[in-house]
């Protein structure tokens, strides 16, 4: 009998142990959208990077959650005095998940492929300053530029610049082979993607044995899945109105981090009356940012006064330039010859910041006499008509690319801001590598577009993550779309 009891005890102990083990080494992660494919070098969808960035694929450099750029597959580098030549020293002993060695040839292949004539890389402009990539020896690569580029190391940290192998790139869309701490295991399309720990990882191995990504875009379903503990982490939780409920529940932790998403009320600078700076200024003063953040985002988000991320050390707070002042707005409209206001269109893409924010902005504009006719558009339609076709008066969108103030130097960009002074400033910035000089130039650029009231600057988009209490190592901020699980662990 005693024997039997011991057996039972031992049995149940091992049973519970195995249950606990299974709990503690696998992570079920939910996100809103399913990636269309898993090749980050051939598509713009953020969902691709969310799954593969740093987990499966790595670049020469990489982003950390705080936005800093640190060595990745390149352990160190030297920059020539004229800033035209970068010599990268690669980590040794790195292999791809299929067992092939990662060396300088792969780096050359990856970068040449991304900037090739027939490349389908969504961020091809990142590589436009590269003149030549040459292999010095198996662990050394030299990149020659056609002009100095102060942001090369930053550009190489993007998911679009990861190192891939010529042997496996053909099938990367459905079976990605990288060098990361996790290996791709399985993809049930429409349902989930599974990854497992890479046992031969060159760096610090992952704590988790495995993880699976699930895709839930419906806000009600997302709430139910977290509450029922069907998922352990939800990155980019779609219903900010539910966050206080999770915060009050000891089973969960809520992380609200920042992104690189400057959410703006874009105005068509080439279309009357927005070609008049007084009108743009009037729109800017008609907007109550805090009311939009509270109403559309349930209080999460940081007000911005220019097109720059507030958590960046070079950020200049210019919100006072466009403070909420309906009286001033009406006066400006009168000065512009539009005392009775005017009618325009407001095209809204699907995200809730745009749809909810758009309703509030339309009401605020109505108070100063501007009638904004709202039209809801799907992304594909928005891209074709608004973004490419320039058929809009105003639109709301979050510009999620990091450090993208350069878009103001492109007069053909959808809001069509054409200012030679800013264009010259940006050219100088690209060729400046001295950090202090760069900071000064960036401050100048921020002030210039804010004083020109190019767009209505609303807020920096925040990303809420809901996770089971005790899970450590999740990214708080999203300097790039990524759900980096390499440092994540259960308590």
């Amino acid at each position, binding site marked *: 009998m005693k024997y039997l009891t011991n057996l039972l005890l031992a049995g149940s102990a091992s049973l519970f142990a195995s249950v606990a083990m299974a709990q503690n080494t696998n992570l079920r992660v939910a996100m809103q959208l*399913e990636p269309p494919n898993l090749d980050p070098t051939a*598509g713009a969808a953020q969902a691709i990077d969310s799954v593969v960035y740093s987990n499966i694929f790595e670049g020469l450099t990489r982003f950390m959650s705080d936005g800093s750029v640190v060595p990745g597959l390149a352990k160190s580098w030297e920059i020539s005095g004229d800033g035209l030549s970068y010599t990268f020293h690669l980590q040794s002993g790195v292999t791809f998940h299929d067992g092939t060695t990662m060396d300088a040839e792969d780096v050359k292949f990856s970068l040449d492929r991304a900037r090739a004539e027939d490349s389908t890389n969504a961020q091809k402009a990142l590589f436009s300053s590269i003149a030549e990539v040459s292999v010095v020896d198996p662990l050394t690569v030299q990149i020659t530029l056609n002009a100095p580029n102060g942001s090369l190391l930053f550009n190489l940290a993007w998911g679009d610049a990861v190192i891939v192998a010529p042997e496996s790139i053909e099938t990367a869309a459905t079976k990605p082979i990288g060098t990361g701490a996790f290996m791709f295991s399985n993809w049930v399309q429409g349902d989930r993607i599974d990854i497992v720990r890479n046992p031969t990882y060159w760096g610090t191995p992952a704590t988790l044995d495995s993880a699976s990504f699930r895709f839930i875009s419906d806000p009600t379903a997302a709430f139910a899945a977290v509450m029922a503990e069907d998922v352990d982490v939800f990155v980019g939780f779609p219903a900010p109105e539910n966050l206080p409920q999770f915060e009050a529940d000891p089973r969960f932790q809520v992380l609200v981090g920042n992104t690189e998403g400057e959410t703006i009320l874009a105005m068509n600078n080439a279309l009357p009356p927005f070609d008049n700076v007084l009108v743009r200024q009037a729109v800017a003063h008609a907007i109550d940012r805090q009311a939009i953040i509270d109403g559309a985002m349930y209080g999460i988000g940081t007000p911005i006064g220019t097109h720059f991320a507030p958590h960046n050390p070079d950020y200049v707070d210019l919100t006072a330039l466009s403070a909420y002042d309906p009286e001033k707005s009406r006066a400006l409209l009168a000065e512009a010859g539009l005392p009775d206001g005017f009618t325009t269109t407001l095209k809204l893409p699907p995200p809730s910041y745009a749809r909810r924010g758009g309703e509030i902005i339309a009401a605020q504009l109505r108070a100063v006499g501007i009638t904004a006719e709202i039209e809801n558009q799907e992304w594909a339609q928005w891209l074709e008509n608004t973004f490419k076709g320039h058929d809009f008066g105003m639109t709301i969108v979050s510009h999620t690319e990091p450090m993208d103030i350069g878009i103001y130097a492109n007069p053909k960009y959808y809001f069509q801001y054409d200012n030679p002074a800013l264009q010259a400033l940006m050219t100088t910035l690209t060729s400046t590598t001295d950090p202090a000089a760069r900071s000064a130039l960036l401050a100048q650029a921020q002030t210039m577009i804010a004083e020109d009231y190019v767009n209505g600057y609303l807020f920096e988009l925040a990303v809420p993550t809901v996770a089971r209490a005790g899970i450590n190592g999740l990214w708080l901020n999203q300097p790039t779309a990524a759900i980096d699980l390499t440092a994540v662990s259960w308590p």
Partner: protein
Amino acid sequence: MMRYTMGRLISLCLSLIVASIVIFTVVEVVPGDPAAYMLGVNARPDTLAALRSELGLDMSLPERYFAWTTGMMQGDFGQSYTYRTPIAAMIADRVWVSLPLALFALTLTIVIAFPAGIYAASRRGKLGDLGVMGATQLGVAVPNFWFAMILVMIFAIKLRWFSAGGFAGWEGGLLSGLKSLLLPAVALALPQAAILARVMRSSLLDMLGEDFIRTARAKGLSRRQALWRHALRNALIPVLTIIGLQFSFLLAGGIVIEQIFFLPGLGRLIFQAISARDLIVVESVVMLLVFVVIVVNFVIDLTYAAVDPRLRLRK
């Protein structure tokens, strides 16, 4: 019977051809370039052109229509723009969720509706009838996604008997698969059962007023015997029509339910494909659903003939 079947077959083929033309034109006319969607806001014109030619989007509309329809007749639906995998394989994967879900929901519908309808008809005007009619009134009025949310709140969040969504897969056995389909199937079935029960009841009551029932009663059958032996079979024709329509609805109309329960079925595939402008996937899946609906109607037409000999014998 032969002639009847041939006639139905010809109308089936014509419907398919017309449907393919309508689907293709409607989907292609909608604004939104798949390549632009995939490459996002920073894409350069040369990159876009490279992708468009890779996807075959630089061909003319008639060329693409022709390539699409001839491919389909050989069972080749083409490749998805976004997933870059064969559509036939994607559909095959998804059908294993949507078809069982539709059949499960249809079974539940019939299991609930038949007894309820027959019971109400046999108790016409009495308390039981009023109860069934009241309940079905509610069932018809309440949309299935609302039922879905209530079910999730009670059985997934409060009681934790079921997952809030997701599909366990058939690899884990029939039971685990059915378990993950139970809540969605119930949510889909309740409004349909309410409709079907009402049709069953009114159809039976119509029959009970017919001369042949009076004859049967005059022969000495009780009201109940007349109902079971004579009225029921004749009342089935309108009921079968509704079941046919409902099956098509359940197969295609799971879109919202599949979103709420994040099930990897055909509805979710269409939903994702529409927003990603994966036009060829939208066209192929919709065409497949049209095909199923038309075939189901064809089968229902043949069933009429089996139930009603007059249709069979007519020249």
